[in-house]
């Protein structure tokens, strides 16, 4: 394993994060540090708060932060609008990508790239340059070229929607990609394609937070750290072997551990492997 917390170059530092939707508290004190080049898997049973964490980081308006801090590249993440987070280099691949009737995929992707490049002080890509970039990334995720002419996600299969998320990630070139159950509902071929996309992306200094219910995708994307989320808290953190142990013993095992410890183990104390 390359990066460790002792030679840290923190990209994201979350401390004591509490978040609620309406009056229900869902995140009850999350501590998580992601350094450049690291892949963190966040696992947990349904309702543990995995998707909430992913959406809170991306700035979904319906969640209220009640306590805690989050720094992204040293800046106050929680003060940023969702679009600013995206332009600063955070990307969320949606668990359920939204259909946008009438909005052409090409137009949507171009608008996304234009906004991001402008924010980063890069010149606007000409249509030709953009088409070149789009073609390269499209081939990587093996998306039918006709899909970019269609309305965003409308009439796409489940696999096509998820591959479209990875296409957007590749085009937007974020420093941190959060994948919210991108593996759910994918067949083996789509899983391989999506995983290839993520592995291609993580080369260099990119970081990934992989939110997943199942260990399956971790056969394709090897995480540096695995965190287990239970009832809004990270109850156990470890290396990639933790995922296998979970697969073997189920989430009840962690539930048992959490009760036994009488406290939660935060990621700051994650063992360096």
């Amino acid at each position, binding site marked *: 394993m390359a990066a460790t917390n002792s030679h840290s170059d923190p990209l994201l530092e979350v401390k004591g994060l509490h978040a609620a939707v309406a009056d229900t508290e869902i995140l009850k004190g999350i501590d998580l540090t992601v350094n450049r080049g690291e892949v963190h898997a966040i696992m947990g049973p349904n309702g543990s708060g995995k998707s909430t964490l992913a959406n809170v980081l*991306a700035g979904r308006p319906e969640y209220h932060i009640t306590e805690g801090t989050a720094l992204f590249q040293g800046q106050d993440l929680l003060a940023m609008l*969702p*679009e600013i987070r995206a*332009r600063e280099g955070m990307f969320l691949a949606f668990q359920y*990508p939204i259909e946008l*009737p*009438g*909005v052409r995929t090409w137009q949507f992707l171009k608008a*996304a790239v234009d906004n991001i490049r402008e924010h980063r002080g890069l010149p606007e890509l000409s249509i030709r340059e953009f088409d070149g970039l789009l073609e390269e990334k499209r081939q990587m995720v093996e998306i039918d070229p006709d899909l970019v002419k269609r309305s965003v996600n409308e009439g796409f299969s489940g696999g096509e929607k998820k591959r479209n998320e990875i296409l957007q990630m590749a085009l937007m070139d974020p420093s941190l990609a959060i994948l919210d159950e991108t593996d759910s509902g994918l067949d083996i071929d789509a899983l391989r394609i999506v995983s290839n996309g993520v592995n291609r992306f993580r080369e260099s200094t990119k970081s990934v937070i992989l939110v997943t219910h199942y260990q399956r995708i971790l056969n394709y994307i090897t995480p540096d750290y695995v965190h287990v989320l239970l009832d809004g808290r990270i109850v156990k953190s470890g290396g990639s072997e933790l995922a296998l142990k979970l697969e073997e013993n189920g989430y009840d095992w962690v539930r048992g551990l959490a009760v036994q410890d009488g406290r939660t183990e935060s990621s700051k104390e994650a063992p360096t492997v």
Partner: protein
Amino acid sequence: MTQTESKYHAYLSDFESLAADGRAHDAGWVRDLRERSLARFSDLGLPTVRRGNEKWKYTNIARIANTAFRYPSKNDPTGIRLADIKDVAPWHDRWVNLVFVNGQYSQALSSRPAETNGVRIASLAEAVVSDRPELERHLARYASTEDDGFTALNTAFLRDGAYVHIPEGESMDSPLNIIFVSTGDEEPVVSHPRVLVVAGPRSKSTLIESYVGIERNRYFTNSVTEIIVEDGAEVDHYRLLAESDDAFHVGTARVHQSDNSKFSSIAFAKSAALARYDLYIGLNGPGSTCELNGLYMTTGAQHIDNLINIDHIKPHTTSRLLYKGVLDGKSRAVFGGTVWVREGAAKSDAHQSDKNLLLSPDAEIDTKPALYIYADDVKCGHGATAGNIDEDTVFYMRSRGMDLETASRLLIYGFASEIIEKVQPVDLRAYFESLFLESLPVHRFEF
């Protein structure tokens, strides 16, 4: 003098003056038709009473009824240049273009090719004499004057308009573009445009009807269109409403479809102070189908009303309807869509939907889709939405780096373009794209 007569004195006195004018070429049978229609109008008046009048529940025409709109005394289209028309209406030099100024045909502004493969294109003023048998068979047969004051009034003033007959088996290469332009006047004036289209068996044609205003004047357009789609014929129909912002418009269209015929229509509405478009489709032949689409984009204090009746009379008939509205400002739109499936119209298949995007808290939509089914073994569906864009949609777009303005613009554009994309002729689609999509209201969907 009855109350109706005194209230509508301007119409009655103008009718008298025109009759006294006594044009030599005026065919007697049309004179009779006009007189009968005027008598009917005198009885009916205009539908100002709305209590219990379902057809006019949401649209108040008092402003039309209380204004003395005059038949233009001087009608001099020479002041209008072709460039003025091209500014406000779809146009292509390759098309057959018929231009009417304040209801009267203008030869100078029109471009009718010498050779049209047997397709008969004429102004109604000539056709009532030259094409009498065909006209007597169809004119005023579908647009009934019996229970509709506006249609009775139009027919009472029937003097000019467009007449088109596409012979059996003929396909028109390019669209037939009919433009009714109103210039208005210092005093409020009225025009009564009239269109009669007979699409012969197995013919194919594309028809564009535009109602446009050049100057910002208060005037009233009261149009009636009759389209007969004979066995196996296909008609692709487009209608544009882009009247002056101070104008009133009541348009009536009656479509009569025979066996296995196909009628497609897209009705675009952009401007008028107050407008009603009343479209009736009679699926009179087995296997006939219609596809009706519409896009209305309202702003300011505009009021746009679409009333559509689709009548499944014979078995195996199909109808599809999708209308969309983008409402801004204090504008109001009304959509009344009714599908009738008559006894004996088994295996009918109907679906209608009206979707609206409200961009302002002061905008209002009254949408009322209805189904009346008197036959067994039919497939019918309907729906209406008067929604806003949801929060998840906007968050998705913002998470891709787009600000609220960009996200909102793409969403409104996408909403409207679903209808515009259905326009078949490429040049015409480009025209509607520029007319609607380049002037979308600026909006932010905030939550």
